[in-house]
């Protein structure tokens, strides 16, 4: 019997989080100004999912990690340069927009379609990983939509921990209201987990891992199929940068007792 997990991580690029973004009207709907030029990073929560996947695969012989990414081919290539040295994975690239304004249903269809075509993937051993929300659409739905399409009925959102018992069952901790965790036990794979931060630090760059990944990265990028999106059914009336400039009153050179009283009154009031 084959052992180990087949871990499929969904994750793509988002504009660097320190960038100032400006919305513009593109040919098919809203877009970001100079979108192709903006420096991009792997979506933070998806990155945590990837690190958790690699960690689990390293501990479980016979496991393998795929990273399924939908984005403009050229930008995906740049992104791979920054993450290829982190952990071992095989890329499945889909050429298409990485915009937050695309519809998650269409994105999920493209991702599920690509997963179904992975020849070596044993879906009875599959763990579908992703971030609990993207830093682009920020909807928190993609993993569930893809999982549902692939018939995965054990799903978890905003997980910070997955432990595998000697018997092969899982214990999963999900973030819920009030700073608590919901603890669930699952019989085993297949299972879908949308990760929050998890517990692992970002792995340091490892040139050997980079070399190993590179062998499959370029062919995967060359093979990237274009995603076929239908006409946007969503109508965006406006996209704006929220106006949250406040007129800041700066209080300084005032005795500390006076400041304290002012703050205490404000809290009580």
């Amino acid at each position, binding site marked *: 019997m084959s052992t180990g997990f087949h871990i499929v991580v969904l994750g793509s690029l988002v504009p660097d*989080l320190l960038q100032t*973004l400006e919305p513009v009207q593109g040919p098919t709907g*809203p877009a970001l100004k100079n979108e192709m030029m903006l420096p991009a990073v792997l979506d*933070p*929560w998806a990155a945590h999912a990837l690190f958790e996947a690699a960690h689990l695969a390293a501990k479980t012989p016979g496991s393998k990690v795929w990273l399924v990414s939908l984005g403009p081919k050229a930008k995906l290539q740049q992104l791979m340069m920054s993450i290829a040295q982190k952990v071992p994975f095989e890329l499945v690239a889909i050429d298409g927009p990485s915009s937050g304004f695309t519809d998650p*249903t269409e994105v*999920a269809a493209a991702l599920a379609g690509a997963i179904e075509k992975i020849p070596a993937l044993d879906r009875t051993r599959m763990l579908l990983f992703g971030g609990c929300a993207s*830093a*682009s*659409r*920020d*909807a*928190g*739905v993609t993993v*569930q*939509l893809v999982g*549902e399409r692939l018939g995965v*009925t*054990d*799903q*978890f959102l*905003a997980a910070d921990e997955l432990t595998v018992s000697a018997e092969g069952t899982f214990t999963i901790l*999900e*973030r*819920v*209201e*009030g*700073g*608590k*965790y*919901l*603890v*669930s036990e*699952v019989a085993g794979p297949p299972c879908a987990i949308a990760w*929050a*931060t998890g517990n692992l*630090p970002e792995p340091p760059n490892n040139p050997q891992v980079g070399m190993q990944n590179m062998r499959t990265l370029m062919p995967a990028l060359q093979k990237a199929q274009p995603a076929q999106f239908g006409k946007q*059914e*969503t*109508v*965006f*009336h406006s*996209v704006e*940068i929220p106006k949250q*400039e*406040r*007129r*800041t*009153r*700066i*209080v*300084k*050179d005032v005795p*500390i007792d006076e*400041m*304290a009283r002012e*703050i*205490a009154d*404000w*809290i009580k009031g």
Partner: protein
Amino acid sequence: MTIETILFVAHTEEDGSLGRAALECLTGAVELHRQIAGASLVAGVIGVDATAAAVAISGCGASKLFAVSGPEFAMSRYASDTAALDSICRTSGATIIVAPATSRFNRAVPGAAQRIGGKIDTHVGGFLVNGAEVTIQRGYYRQRMIATLTRAARPWFVTIDAGLFPKFEGAAANTPVESLTVATSDAFNRTKVVGYRAPEADAQTIRPDANLLFVAGVGWTKKQADGQVHLTEAADIILGFLDKSKASLGSSKSLVDQSTEGHNVFSFMSHLNQVGQTGATPRHAKGLSACCHGEEPHVVGWRFIGERRAINLDANCGWAQGKTDVLYIADAFALVKKVGELL
């Protein structure tokens, strides 16, 4: 033109009643119903005994009430929740489904939308009705942009964040509650919900219902004017203030990153406290920040904080750039301690 059927759907809490997020969301659904010409409102509840909770909200104007009850629907589990949602949505013939953005529904509602062939928008922050057209507002790029949009596709699932509407209140009506039978499947048995794990007693610092959010930054762990770090004193001041103010505790990323890497001793803090672009975006009437710089990736997490004040030694910190209402230039160790004494 579509004649809309609006379905409000919710799950019960452990005590069998509907929670705050659900009752606020119901007010939103009732508002929507009032504004869309010719629309009808129906409601559905999932829980151990969902009928009682459905009766409790029967005064909301819903023409039909549905309940999916049973011990297998007591807890938050994807397989059973999606099956229950599927049944309620199909039976009701809903075109717009309005659901609270609780952790349980954030997980299950997208799956149900996919199963039914609907579209979904999450974390909706408000809606506007213009004749028969419903438009919603939601954030993109981690709150760096706000979009106003509409969809033609139905069924349309919309999840609503807490804190947008007042809680629904209304006397029960005599609308009968229709109990729906949802076949249990083997899938229900694959995931067993064990229960909750709460943080240690002294770490219960996240209080979603608090009036005030108190955010600590990494300055609490930095060398102070005397060239020393004062971790124990910082911990005492922060905990003392939380005790007096009953505030919920937030953190900058830098501070909780330190904690998890073992450099730090703030046992009462974890990544769950992190506010910002890669953390939480909590809703509180007031927010007070201390020893936090106020950089953009942090402050986007303050989007739903009403009145804001900050304490920093540095008059040129990020908060000074129009991000807070008042900025106190002071030593937070001394000032927060004093404020705690006055509360």
